[in-house]
């Protein structure tokens, strides 16, 4: 593994070496992408069942039958876990990052190809273990993706909290290892394998986002792993890291002295950087796409880099804002609250700069551009509910209400997903040699853009009215009854939006076979992936080293023959 073969040799032969245990970062990237694609449809299906149950609690559905309260909580738990880990931490980084980081920096592959292959298959193992939780006795756990102890630490706290919960923890532990392996590759590759002339400040913002995301993962996943180990010990070895003296179902638990808050601290120390891991690559893609299709350099490249670095750094200092109501000291809450408001600043800077990129541009409304524009709108909407939640005095009212899912779905569940869509439409031609269908793409965009607003904007209203999260039925608490019509609206919006995703699925697979053939640089873009063949050859550049002369976003340079100057173009663009 240390003495890695690089590309002085020929490409591998045979189906297994070429497509199953491939060492080629491009194939591995596609493997991650398709794993995430499978996971997102599983996750959407789970959420669909949730939405149906909320407004028709007694309905009996085909295959699943009637959904009871504990099943609802299981759906909720697995929806969150699968989406956060196997979609948002997989597709943007493992998928697109793996495929395009080496190419965009001019390298023939990742630093450690064998490790790369192992990191995918370890992720796949984690995914299989996670799904297996559905099929064991008791089923999958019901403790939420956040897995708060003691609910997650006591095997008799509810159905699914037996073997199902153990498998959930093991899956996450395996996922941690897989992510750490991936982070290792990303960081080493970015630092050590850039082509001549590709300085750090000439890297596309996508590369910066993958690099910073990898650093976040490197520092955060070890902590999650530690928390998972302690939780497994509490559950199976009788320790009391998280379990105080208490009872469950009227029986003494047999534990004492532990702290449920310790779990929350460890989990959120990971959990907050995790959400930045989920969004940073999307921000990188948004910058890339907005610049390409505005035919303008990104506004404030340096500021964009510093903003991402600031988000990464501050992201480790705000975890307590998930714990304002937890019993944590109010003084500590104040400190975390100030840091949380601070982290809003780099995000705002990035938004201003995206708007600045559009200003004065010559905008081409291609499919990737639509999703990048949508990303900005959704990021603004989701981001602005943050300052409400960041203030503990307002969080008293809003914590654990629908206001919180409104906030994080708009950012993670929509904006980050739009980043994945934008990346798909943008790089599909390079990966598969064909264009995706533009009309279908537009239908997909409108269904998704309007649909997700229709689903998640109303959740703010529910939250302000005091509607708590994670309620499997709305029939008991009296003040929720007037809110049921709004929940009904959300469910119908969800039906329509999910249906719209089928358009994307069809477009994706149909275009792989039947899409119009793509040239090497159909978007007239400047970064290194567009200098090479479509799809790229095994060593990415056909035996030729790229030599970089220019920054990544030299569009509409005055005096240049075309409105774009590629990074490898030796005609030098000197910026004053």
């Amino acid at each position, binding site marked *: 593994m*240390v*003495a*890695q073969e*690089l*590309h*002085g*040799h020929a490409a591998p032969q045979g189906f297994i070496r070429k497509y199953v245990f491939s060492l080629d970062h491009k194939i591995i990237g596609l493997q991650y992408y398709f794993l995430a694609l499978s996971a997102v449809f599983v996750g959407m299906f789970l959420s669909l069942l949730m939405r149906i149950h909320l407004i028709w609690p007694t309905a009996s559905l085909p295959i699943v039958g009637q959904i009871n309260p504990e099943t609802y909580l299981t759906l909720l738990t697995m929806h969150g876990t699968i989406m956060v880990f196997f979609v948002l931490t997989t597709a943007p980084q493992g998928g697109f990052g793996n495929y395009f980081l080496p190419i965009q920096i001019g*390298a*023939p592959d990742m*630093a*450690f190809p064998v490790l790369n292959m192992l990191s995918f298959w370890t992720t796949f193992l984690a995914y299989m273990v996670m799904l297996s939780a559905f099929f064991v006795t008791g089923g999958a756990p019901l403790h939420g993706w956040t897995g708060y102890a003691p609910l997650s630490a006591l095997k008799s706290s509810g159905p699914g909290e037996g073997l199902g919960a153990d498998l959930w923890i093991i899956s996450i532990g395996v996922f941690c290892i897989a992510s*750490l392996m991936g*982070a290792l590759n990303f960081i*080493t590759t970015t630092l*050590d*394998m850039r*082509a*001549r002339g590709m300085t750090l400040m000439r890297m596309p913002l996508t590369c910066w986002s993958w690099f910073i995301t990898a650093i976040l993962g*490197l*520092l955060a*996943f*070890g*902590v999650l*792993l*530690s*928390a998972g*180990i*302690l939780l497994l*010990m509490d559950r199976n*070895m*009788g*320790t009391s*890291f998280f379990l*105080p*003296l208490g009872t469950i179902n009227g029986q003494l638990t047999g534990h*004492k*002295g*532990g*702290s449920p808050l*310790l779990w929350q*601290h*460890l989990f959120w120390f990971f959990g907050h950087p995790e959400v930045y891991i989920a969004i940073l690559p999307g921000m990188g893609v948004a910058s890339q796409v907005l610049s390409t299709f505005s035919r303008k350099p990104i506004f404030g490249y340096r500021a964009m880099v510093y903003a991402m670095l600031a988000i990464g750094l501050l992201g480790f200092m705000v975890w307590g804002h998930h714990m304002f109501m937890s019993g944590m000291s109010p003084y500590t809450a104040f400190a975390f609250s100030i840091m949380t408001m601070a982290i809003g600043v780099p995000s705002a800077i990035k938004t201003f700069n995206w708007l600045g990129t559009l200003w004065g541009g010559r905008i081409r409304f291609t499919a990737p551009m639509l999703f990048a524009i949508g990303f900005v709108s959704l990021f603004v909407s989701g981001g602005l509910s943050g300052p409400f939640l960041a203030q503990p005095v307002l969080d008293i009212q809003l914590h654990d209400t629908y206001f919180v899912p409104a906030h994080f779905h708009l950012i993670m569940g929509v904006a980050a997903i739009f980043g994945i869509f934008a990346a798909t439409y943008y790089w599909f031609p390079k990966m598969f040699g064909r264009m995706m269908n533009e009309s279908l793409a537009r239908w997909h965009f409108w269904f998704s853009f309007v649909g997700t607003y229709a689903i998640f904007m109303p959740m703010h209203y529910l939250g302000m009215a005091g509607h708590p999260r994670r309620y499997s039925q709305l029939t008991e608490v009296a003040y929720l009854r007037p809110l049921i019509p709004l929940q009904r609206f959300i469910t119908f919006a969800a039906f329509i939006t999910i249906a719209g995703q089928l358009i994307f699925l069809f477009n994706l697979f149909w275009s792989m076979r039947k899409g119009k053939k793509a040239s*090497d640089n159909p978007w007239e873009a400047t970064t290194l992936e567009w200098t090479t*063949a479509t799809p790229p050859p095994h060593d990415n550049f*056909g*035996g*030729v*080293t790229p030599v970089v002369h220019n920054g990544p976003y*030299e569009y509409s340079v*005055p*005096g240049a023959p075309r409105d774009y100057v*590629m990074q*490898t173009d*030796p*005609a*030098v*663009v*000197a*910026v*004053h």
Partner: protein
Amino acid sequence: MATFTPAVSEPPVASRRRGHNQPPFEGSGDGDRDNPGSPDYASRLRRARLGLGVALTPILMLFVSFTSAYVVRQGLPTLDPETNKVVHDWVSVPLPTALFLINTLVLIASSLTIERARRQLSRQMILQPIEQIPGVRASNEKRFPWLGITILLGLAFLTGQWFAWRELADRGFFVATGPSSSFFYLLTGAHAFHLMGGILALFIAGSTVILRRSLESRQIAVDVTAWYWHFMALLWIYILALLEFAH
């Protein structure tokens, strides 16, 4: 403001596809006997060491996290419902200090031996061009099996840790006996697990001889393993200090 200075020649990208004579990538040269055309020894070593440095970070974070939990748990008051008062319930576990000290010396010794192995191989690498001249032998020094000795010392350490666990169990302290004992087993167990990984790496590094890998590849393998091993030794000293002094 920007100026666009057209270059002399260099045709657009599409035609620069095949047949240039530039060496593939920065820092590459003739590669080595295992991988002709790949980056040279210096680049490979640098990359391997960088990779190791990056890899050690999450391991460090794991133990930082355990340490944080340890410190918090020690100071944590918990509600005693009988008195409605908060109490501290931390009782320190008696450590098998003598055994620990012996194991520490064994581990430090193994650090020394792997360092000898690493340097021995480095010296071999430097002398290799000279030794390739027929009839010249740079030194008569036999190749001492430092690596093998390190493996033995590593196994001895693990055995010693096992005895330490036995001693604690004999005194009635098991994983769930109390928070102090839980952390004892957790910290020493996690370290031992990672050390086992190190021993596996030593075996793999050693196997590069049997597999007839090039001297460069062997040196890189041993180099990286050695640094990992040193990290494990330092980590053990840290854990020992934490258990002994922070309670």
